[in-house]
């Protein structure tokens, strides 16, 4: 424990110390599988309604499909969550919010691109105001349909859980997607593998 110049006390450099500790712990096999188990059953999507698939997202958390069974609890703030479900089209204006929310979220984070609009553009493929979701954030699961049925969202969550258990790293760790200053449909994705 050291003393800062202007009367602020530091516990070392908190960020580096905690990162070192976490990376050490994560190398231990049993710890890793425990973390995976925790992540698997605690996928909390952030409240980010990008478009109209939000109605089916809402129905998926509703009683008939009740994704809370799988530990999927929609939550308000981005700081406490670890999953974004991009619900349909992202417009140029919304793309910035999506990127900001994604960057506000703490580290192991996943993204589900829900619906045709988030995949290749769907019916709005040639609109001047929409962006494919993969140009904004790295995406783990793509989900077909317009809008996909709630079961399909459940399928995406199940597939995400499987990939977590199989130690597949989140797409955020593999791809480095540069945030376009003004993201547009023709912006090139720079996917750099580690």
């Amino acid at each position: 424990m050291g003393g800062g110049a202007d009367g602020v006390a530091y516990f070392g450099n908190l960020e580096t110390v905690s990162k070192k500790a976490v990376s050490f712990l994560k190398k231990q096999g049993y710890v890793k599988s425990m973390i995976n188990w925790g992540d698997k059953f605690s996928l909390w999507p952030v409240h980010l309604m990008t478009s109209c698939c939000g109605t089916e997202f809402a129905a998926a958390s509703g009683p008939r499909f009740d994704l809370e069974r799988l530990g999927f609890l929609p939550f308000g703030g981005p700081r406490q969550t670890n999953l974004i479900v991009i619900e349909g089209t992202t417009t140029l204006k919304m793309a910035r919010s999506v990127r900001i929310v994604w960057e506000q979220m703490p580290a192991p984070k996943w993204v589900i691109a829900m619906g045709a609009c988030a995949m290749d553009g769907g019916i709005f493929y040639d609109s001047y105001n929409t962006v494919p979701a993969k140009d904004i954030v790295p995406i783990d699961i793509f989900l077909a349909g317009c809008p996909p049925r709630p079961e399909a969202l459940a399928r995406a969550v199940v597939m995400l859980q499987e990939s977590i258990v199989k130690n597949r790293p989140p797409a955020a760790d593999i791809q480095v997607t540069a945030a376009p200053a003004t993201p547009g449909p023709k912006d090139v994705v720079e996917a750099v593998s580690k």
Partner: protein
Amino acid sequence: MIQILSLLMSVSLVSFIEYILPPILYIIVFPGLIVVLLMLFFMIWLERKVAAKTQLRFGPLYVSKRFGGVIQTVADLIRFSFQEFIIPAGADVFAYIQAPGLLMAFGLLPLIFIPVGPYYANIFPANYSLLIVVPLIIITPIYVILLGWASDNKFSFVGSMREAFLVISYEIPLILSILSMILLYGSVNAINGVSFQIGRGIPGIVLNPIAAFLFLVVMIRTTGRFPFEISEAESEVVMGPYTEYSALFFGIGMSLPYIELYSFSLLFSVLFLGGWWPIVPSAAAASGVVGGLLLPGLVVFIKALIVMAFLVFLRAVYPRYRIDQAITVGWDQAVYLGFAAVALSMALVWSGLV
């Protein structure tokens, strides 16, 4: 070194059981840390499950299908523990980091002063228990305010301001409610209060229902249950004071309302539900660990559990009040009710009915 060893050897097994084990049991096991932790896991799961049941669905299930997903909170805790901890750029770092810890500490502190068995008097000074518990309960929300203040977020700020307003407006009803019971029992020692109820055979909730109702309302407010879940209102101020907190610190912060709920419920069952009645340990058994501590403690705990279950069930029924309505209730009707409760107690005592 040798002196210490000889001292240890001189401590016989009997004195170990009599003098050293009970405080350890009391602090670590019950109603201390381990039970608090288990209660926390269970209560958060129960809240989600009860709400889900009322809402025509299952709630957490797949994490352990056979037991209805009872370890859901454990999974959430593990996930929170290993998530990235983010300190916002504008936050007051020192306050931001220490606030959740202090919150936890002050949330746990009242537990020491709530007697859960007659044996309690042998370990801790119980003579002023009610006088100590009240300020300890009231002081905790100050750290909630600190939490919001340190975060440098407007929603946290608004949320902590709401918390501050509500704390102030519900202090007087809480004090009046406890005061009326102190007047009735003629003692600030909660053990005397329980023996009063056991001796008369009437629980406090029947003796002074106004005070009990008022205490319940204050309890709902302080622990942020619906319809008084105002400082964390998700659709208004996101998560209120907790908006910027991530990872384990959020877990610590969010567990506070449940710890408060626990201490309040213990206090409620001691003050109003007859404490450890129907188990009335004899004088000999009262000084034993099992008869004096564990069995009465279990009874108090079960009563507290029922109270907690009722309070978490309210989530399924009510939306939330507006802040000004809640404050008006606190300063207006609740204070009148408090005076009525005190008057009722005085009338009971003076008329010699109890």
